[in-house]
């Protein structure tokens, strides 16, 4: 039905479209890559992996897993080039770890890596929380969740603090509806989007326990370990370098002491706490310089954090220095 049986004068009769489509069926292309190196060169994934290695301190197990995934994707690509069966692997992931361990940062990189390897078409990241998925009243949740999913298609959907989706204490909670829609799309449109769930370890474990369907559809459970003091120190150096600051004499040692104290205190949020501490040090440095109205300030004065700036912290309050 439907197709006109006439042709426009002076042109060839319309070819049945189905024929045109079958031409494009996957065949082992002549010029396709045959070696790992060729695929790597084509996709430039190596550059992203190196960047990951360079920019992210610590996180050895996470990096190893990302390398494994990247290797699988490269090998699959080679298989596909030879015409072997290579079904799209399930790439949904869960990132668990304490606050500030770099879950969002890695998710962003993940989108980039998957895009370079050609497993997501656009490589953008849509970061959402419960509020973006779950509605306020009956019939609100499904369209809302669908809209987010549609926006994320061709990229990565990153659900931060995913355990909030499921509230066991309220059985009429709309979160369950959102989870069902998510599961459906995760299963049926595996090549259209990759879902990454993130959250604290213990709460995510309860979440997966009460939603076994979700757990089984996620192939990669990545656990982000806490940073050691040395790693945090390294992170601090990186952060300062990016913002054109540096530690003055002894300041690095003082910051090390600061970290050792801070790590034992409650609400320690790894890299995020480091960033906050540095931000406060910058504030103190600014007001220290501000107080000296008449002094001429050179580049060195403006970029150096002195021990004084760090020692004024609340963390050192109980010691006489």
């Amino acid at each position, binding site marked *: 039905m439907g197709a006109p049986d006439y042709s426009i004068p002076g042109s060839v009769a319309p070819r049945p479209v189905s024929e045109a489509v079958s031409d494009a069926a996957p065949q082992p292309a002549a010029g396709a890559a045959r070696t790992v190196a060729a695929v790597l060169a084509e996709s430039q994934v190596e550059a992203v992996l190196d960047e990951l290695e360079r920019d992210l301190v610590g996180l050895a197990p996470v990096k190893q897993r990302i390398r494994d995934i990247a290797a699988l994707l490269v090998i699959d690509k080679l298989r596909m080039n030879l015409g072997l069966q290579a079904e799209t692997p399930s790439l949904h992931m869960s990132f668990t770890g304490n606050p500030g361990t770099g879950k969002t940062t890695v998710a962003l990189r993940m989108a980039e890596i998957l895009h370079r390897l050609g497993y997501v078409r656009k490589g953008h990241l849509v970061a959402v929380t419960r509020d973006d998925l779950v509605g306020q009243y009956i019939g609100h949740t499904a369209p809302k969740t669908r809209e987010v999913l*549609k926006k994320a298609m061709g990229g990565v959907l990153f659900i931060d603090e995913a355990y909030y989706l499921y509230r066991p204490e309220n059985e009429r909670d709309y979160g369950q509806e959102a989870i069902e829609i998510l599961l459906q799309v995760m299963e049926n449109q595996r090549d259209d989007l990759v879902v990454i769930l993130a959250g604290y370890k213990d709460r995510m474990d309860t979440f997966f326990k009460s939603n076994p369907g979700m757990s089984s559809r996620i192939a990669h459970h990545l656990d982000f370990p806490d940073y050691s003091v040395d790693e945090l120190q390294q992170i601090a150096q990186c952060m300062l370098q990016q913002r054109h600051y540096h530690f003055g004499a002894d300041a690095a040692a003082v910051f090390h002491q600061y970290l050792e104290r801070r790590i034992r205190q409650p609400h320690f949020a790894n890299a995020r706490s480091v960033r906050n501490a540095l931000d406060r040090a910058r504030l103190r440095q600014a007001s220290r310089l501000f107080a000296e109205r008449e002094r001429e300030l050179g580049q060195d004065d403006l970029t150096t954090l002195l021990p004084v700036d760090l020692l004024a912290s609340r963390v050192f309050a109980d010691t006489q220095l």
Partner: protein
Amino acid sequence: MMTNPTGRLTQGQFSFLPDLTDAEINLQIEYGLRRGYAWSVEYTDDPHPRNTFWEMFGMPMFDLRDAAGVMLELRNCRQTFPHHYIRLVAFDSTRGIESITMSFIVNRPPSEPGFGLQRQEGPGRTLRYTLTPYATARPEGERY
């Protein structure tokens, strides 16, 4: 005289061509998304040429990056209204344009009876023409 020998509705883009396949529709959507258009799905069973306002199937889809989202809605719409006309509409929200820039039919009923032309004689030798779809004789929802 037969102006439309295939009896197909010809409205919007590509309507003189054979029906687009899903792969081709996908390419058109991608093109629109690259230009920053917002796609929406509309359906009707009253395809009079002057009936420009078709029913919306869901909201227009802003901020999409990939055609898969639009195709998902299109599949839903085809499932819900298999015997209706369905079209995809692209809206350009650029200041100063703010209007529809693309529109094409992606689903047709199995048979399209077409339109009847009625002539009404007026004063003098005036003739008034009215175009009536044969299908609209039946109530909404039972037309095709």
